[in-house]
């Protein structure tokens, strides 16, 4: 008895240390200089927690645990080695796996405990499987869209919000009934089933441009479901880890929704990709000025200050390494080159930073929107590579524009604006960009990677 109690204490202390290490791990993420300590702290915490758990008295069989741990590691390693351009879909997939784990454990716990489930226990158990279930299928859908297995365009139909609302109410209603009548076991699979369907329907109407917000939101749900699981299992470590993940995802969702000029409630209730009354009508061909790589190279070489604005198009064209060559050759000529990063550029929070860092561009050259916007009037050339809506001046001036009020990069204030683009088709949101028709704007038509490559060759750099 005494010995038993003693080892329980040791395990709880180990969990306590692991919790502290998790918090430190996130704290060290505040700057790139300390971030790698953060990983180490997280890893030590994780090893301690798993090790401590294996020592628990109730555990009688290790065979399957070991097999599952080995199998999971075998899947985890390739998932950790994916290309940097595939990071958004990998992240979505890992949200799905996390939610799957939580949902399965919740389901097993229900059937082990039923019908003697207290009211509070049943409430958190329902919360666990609702959040877990919708995060699982929702994240799978998001991953499918990002991997382009599923169509990236928003899929919408009439009464979509109503259907989603009814489903959600059904799930919550069944959960409430089950809390009051724990013997009505049949409601449990119904709750899980509805949550799984809800996850699919919740992400279907979401387009690529809204992905950063959705991924953050799913991240938050995954965390909250894990915290709910902590309540079910009475594990303080799990409650803390879940709360940290949940608040992290929530903060990122708020930052993303601000950067898209959406109210947070609007985002929470999934009014993404609202009916985008494709403003692509009025296809009158307005005159634009275009330029060749030679002309673009000459203008860049003559500039003092250049700001490059990368967007998702750069990721699609895999142009980041060519962009790095351009950065090198211009820097060598004494041009001050910086990068302007809009919070929602790309498909997940911080996407552009990772791609540019992968191409060996120093991170102190990557400047956030608020910091760099004041510098555009003193900038000689703003070079836009694969970004569209985040540079659209209509967001500042045109009240009728769907993106009116969205904070943008003020590239139109630079002396010269150059836009690398495949053609004149409007961007993802289907909104025309008046930037392209300005006198100071030069359109560089072509594939981002090839075009940047040609500019680099003109400037005598690259290989």
């Amino acid at each position, binding site marked *: 008895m005494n010995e038993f109690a003693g080892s329980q204490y040791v395990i709880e202390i180990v969990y306590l240390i692991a919790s502290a290490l998790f918090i430190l791990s996130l704290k060290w993420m505040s700057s790139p200089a300390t971030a790698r300590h*953060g990983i180490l702290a997280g890893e030590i915490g994780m090893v301690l927690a798993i090790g401590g*758990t294996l020592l628990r008295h109730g555990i009688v069989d290790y065979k399957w645990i070991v097999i*599952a741990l080995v199998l999971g590691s075998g899947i985890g390693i390739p998932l*950790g080695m*994916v290309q940097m351009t595939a990071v958004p879909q990998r992240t979505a997939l890992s949200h799905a*796996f996390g939610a799957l784990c939580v949902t399965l454990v919740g389901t097993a716990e229900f059937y082990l405990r039923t019908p003697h489930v207290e009211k509070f226990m049943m409430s958190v158990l329902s919360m666990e499987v609702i959040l877990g279930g919708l995060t699982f299928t929702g994240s799978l859908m998001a991953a499918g869209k990002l991997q382009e297995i599923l169509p990236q365009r928003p899929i919408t139909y009439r009464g979509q919000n109503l259907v989603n609302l009814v489903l959600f109410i059904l799930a919550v209603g069944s959960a409430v009934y089950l809390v009051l009548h724990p013997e009505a076991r049949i409601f449990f699979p119904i709750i899980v089933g509805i949550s799984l369907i809800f996850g699919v329907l919740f992400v279907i109407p979401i387009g690529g441009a809204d992905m950063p917000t959705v991924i953050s939101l799913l991240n938050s749900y995954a965390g909250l479901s894990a915290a709910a699981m902590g309540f079910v299992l009475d594990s303080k470590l799990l*409650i803390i880890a879940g709360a940290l993940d949940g608040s*992290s995802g*929530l903060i990122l969702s708020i930052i993303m929704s601000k950067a898209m000029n959406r109210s947070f409630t609007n985002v929470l209730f999934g009014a993404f990709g609202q009916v985008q009354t494709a403003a692509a009508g009025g296809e009158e061909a307005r005159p634009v000025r275009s330029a060749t790589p030679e002309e673009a190279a000459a203008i860049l070489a003559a500039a003092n200050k250049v700001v490059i604005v990368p967007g998702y198009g750069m990721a699609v064209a895999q142009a980041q390494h060519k962009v790095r060559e351009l950065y090198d050759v211009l820097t060598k000529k004494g041009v001050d080159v910086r990068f302007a990063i809009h919070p929602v550029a790309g498909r997940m929070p911080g996407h552009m930073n990772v791609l540019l860092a992968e191409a*060996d561009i120093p991170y102190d050259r990557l400047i956030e929107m608020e910091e760099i916007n004041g510098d555009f009037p003193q900038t000689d050339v703003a070079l836009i590579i694969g970004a569209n809506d985040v540079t659209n001046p209509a967001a500042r001036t045109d009240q009728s524009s769907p993106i009116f009020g969205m904070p943008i990069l003020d590239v139109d204030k630079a002396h010269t604006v150059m836009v690398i683009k495949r053609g004149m088709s409007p961007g993802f949101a289907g909104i025309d960009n008046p930037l392209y028709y300005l006198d100071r704007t030069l359109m560089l038509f072509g594939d981002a990677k090839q075009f940047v490559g040609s500019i680099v060759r003109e400037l005598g750099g690259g290989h």
Partner: protein
Amino acid sequence: MQSNLIDALFIFMLACFIGFEVIRHVSPLLHTPLMSLTNALDAIAVVGAIVLVGEKKSTFATVLGVIAIVAATSNVVGGFLITDRMLRMFKTSRPVKK
């Protein structure tokens, strides 16, 4: 049990505030690695699955638990691995302080 529950709610509330404060200070530069790191940490849910499998209470629970361990472990390993790979890439052009 009842007091345990209230304790747990207090812990949850405090952890949320700590999370907000800590993560508010994360540089936007690192938002992608932040997400993969929290993902790996969140996979601590694996401990729940381990107990489930180890206690061997029913075949159904064991099967679900094994799948859960596989899913969570892949997040732990993959999450730490890719976060580390990303952070290795972040370099500064300023001289490194010794």
